[in-house]
């Protein structure tokens, strides 16, 4: 335990360089801005800013992205509270009490500060648990061979593809699509070119950055075209730091739900497919069974604290399987993982021993990002009215240009722009027709790892499937996999026979 603390301090030593601190501040500011603007979200934000990190060394680059992802969780609540439109998925629950507190109770500044403080508390709890759980998980991961890794990767992919979204079949279809796209180019084991369809460009495979910018960034801008005439109606005209201060009584109301949700949210964040949105929903649901001074949904401080602490803790908790096992829990995690791989780092059980400066530097940077984001989000309160008033129609050409130059810069060729364009249009059509594109991004990133482990497992077992059930760890994962697959089917049957209500 003490070793973890000393490693964390060594992480702070790595972190405290001028460049890394600047990267953390830059990531935090951008994350807050991207999160505050409704409709962009952390996934698109991280994807769009990925090319900007090319100039940095891997540690600085991922520190910036980590701060950006983290600050995004803070920013998502701003529009929920001041406009009544959630900036991202996790902020949906914040709106239930945040918006009434700003409008009916006429305490918009206090609602923002409650949200910021709860996010900070939840985040700190998540990071403390991550500090101890990450290395433990990595130690456990050292026992994994190809069979265990295959089973674990199948669980991660299935849980996101099968459980996220309304239609499991569509989730599986896109998971398979992402894997097939990733298998184009060179075969990872033999080096043999495959599925290049005679194109010299496809010999190198589908480039990750343009693909992800298209699927989550450009598709989002096309979608925004339909909303560009909608006017932003802010609940206040002016905000100041002085008028946003909360009382000691407010703080006493905020602390218990924030601490409770912080612990719970961290463990939800560790589960693949669950993520910050589920954590926020669960935090709010749990708060319902505890006493609140005012009823939830009427602008209760406890309601804001419960979901904001939970979603920030989940964002921190999600780093544990990402760093220790190389398994992202969400689409944004997949983009971060893709970024890590791009810089030659291989997250997994060996990361904590082979690149401790990186792993601990990143964890330390989350602590710093949490503190910096709290200060910035506090300081930015007077400017929020202006930031949130930027019309969508002005954002469209700016994001489009960033999508184009960002995807060009990865390969210095228009091929990158072409990939971004095709995946963007495809991503838009798919999301409009009820297909969630996050499983495609996740499977695209994890496919090479899954393929190499699966093939190695089959080489060891000489083609026998028994290798996956003979080893206890992989057997457990296979059982989880079967339960995951059966869960929507059982739910469907229960709804059909009237035992359960339809979602």
């Amino acid at each position, binding site marked *: 335990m003490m070793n973890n603390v000393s490693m964390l301090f060594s992480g702070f030593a790595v972190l405290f360089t001028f460049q890394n601190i600047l990267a953390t501040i830059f990531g935090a500011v951008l994350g807050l801005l991207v999160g505050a603007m409704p409709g962009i979200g952390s996934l698109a934000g991280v994807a769009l800013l990925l090319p900007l990190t090319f100039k940095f060394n891997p540690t600085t680059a991922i520190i910036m992205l980590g701060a950006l992802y983290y600050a995004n969780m803070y920013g998502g609540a701003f529009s929920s509270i001041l406009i009544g439109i959630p900036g991202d998925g996790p902020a949906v629950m914040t709106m239930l009490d945040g918006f009434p507190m700003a409008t009916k109770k006429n305490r918009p500044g206090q609602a923002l500060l409650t949200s910021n403080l709860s996010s900070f508390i939840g985040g700190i709890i998540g990071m403390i648990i991550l500090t101890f759980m990450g290395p433990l998980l990595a130690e456990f991961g050292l026992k994994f061979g190809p069979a265990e890794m295959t089973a674990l990767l199948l669980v991660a992919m299935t849980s996101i593809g099968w459980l996220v979204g309304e239609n499991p079949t569509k989730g599986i279809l896109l998971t398979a*699509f992402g894997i097939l796209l990733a298998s184009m180019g060179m075969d990872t084991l033999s080096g*043999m070119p495959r599925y290049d369809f005679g194109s010299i460009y496809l010999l190198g495979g589908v480039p990750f950055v343009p693909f992800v910018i298209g699927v989550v960034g450009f598709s989002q801008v096309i979608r925004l075209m339909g909303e560009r005439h909608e006017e932003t109606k802010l609940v206040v005209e002016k905000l100041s730091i002085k008028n946003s201060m909360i009382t000691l009584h407010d703080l006493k109301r905020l602390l218990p739900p924030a601490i409770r949700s912080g612990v719970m949210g961290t463990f939800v964040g560790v589960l693949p497919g669950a993520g910050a949105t589920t954590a926020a929903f669960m935090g709010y649901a749990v708060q319902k069974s505890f006493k609140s001074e005012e009823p939830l949904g009427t602008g209760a401080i406890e309601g804001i604290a419960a979901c904001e602490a939970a979603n920030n803790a989940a964002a921190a908790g999600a780093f544990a399987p990402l760093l220790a096992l190389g398994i992202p829990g969400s689409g944004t995690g997949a983009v971060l993982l893709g970024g890590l791989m791009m810089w030659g780092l291989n997250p997994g059980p060996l990361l904590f021993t082979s690149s401790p400066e990186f792993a601990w530097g990143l964890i330390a940077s989350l602590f710093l990002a949490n503190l910096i984001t709290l200060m910035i989000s506090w300081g930015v309160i007077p400017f929020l009215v202006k930031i949130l008033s930027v019309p969508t129609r*002005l954002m*469209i050409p700016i994001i*489009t240009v960033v999508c*184009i130059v960002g995807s060009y810069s990865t390969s210095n060729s228009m091929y990158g722009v072409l990939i971004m364009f095709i995946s963007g249009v495809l991503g838009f059509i798919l999301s409009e027709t009820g297909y969630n594109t996050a499983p495609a991004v996740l499977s695209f990133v994890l496919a090479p790892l899954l393929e190499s482990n699966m093939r190695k497992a089959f080489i060891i077992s000489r083609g026998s499937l028994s290798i996956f059930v003979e080893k206890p760890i992989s057997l457990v994962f296979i059982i989880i996999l079967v339960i995951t697959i059966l869960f929507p089917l059982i739910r469907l049957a229960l709804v059909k026979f009237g035992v359960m209500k339809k979602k």
Partner: protein
Amino acid sequence: METSTKKKKITVMQVIPLCGIILGAAFIYLGISKYGFWDEFKGPLPGFFPTLIAILMLSASALALFSSRKEETVSWTLDNWILPLSVIGIFLATWVIGLLLSLAIFVLVWLRKFEKCSWKTTLTVFAVVAVIVVGAFVLWLGVPFPKGIILTMLAN
């Protein structure tokens, strides 16, 4: 009794799983015939994994096609396609006048002609875009953007 002879139109809800079926079939065919599935001594070959996944995709697409009959189709307005069409325009213009100039024209035309913004708003947004592109991508990252035929000819 009147029998309905009205043909059901194929919508985008059916087109997507149909594309999935075609893509899955193509990957299975290439995987088995061209790249190889299994070797007795070497074990799984390069076509092994994509073929398995393609079978999964083909099955999921068939299921999605079957359930798509009950789904309502979606319709899009021209507004949604103006942006992709503009990007195609930028793509074509890049060969002639280069990427940066194409993007500059796109931003100005988009804001002035399409969004009917004032010159003040247009120039403010243009300045923001210029700072991002020139500041971050040209000066900081040093990205060599294509100059296009005309600028290359002038430079030579």
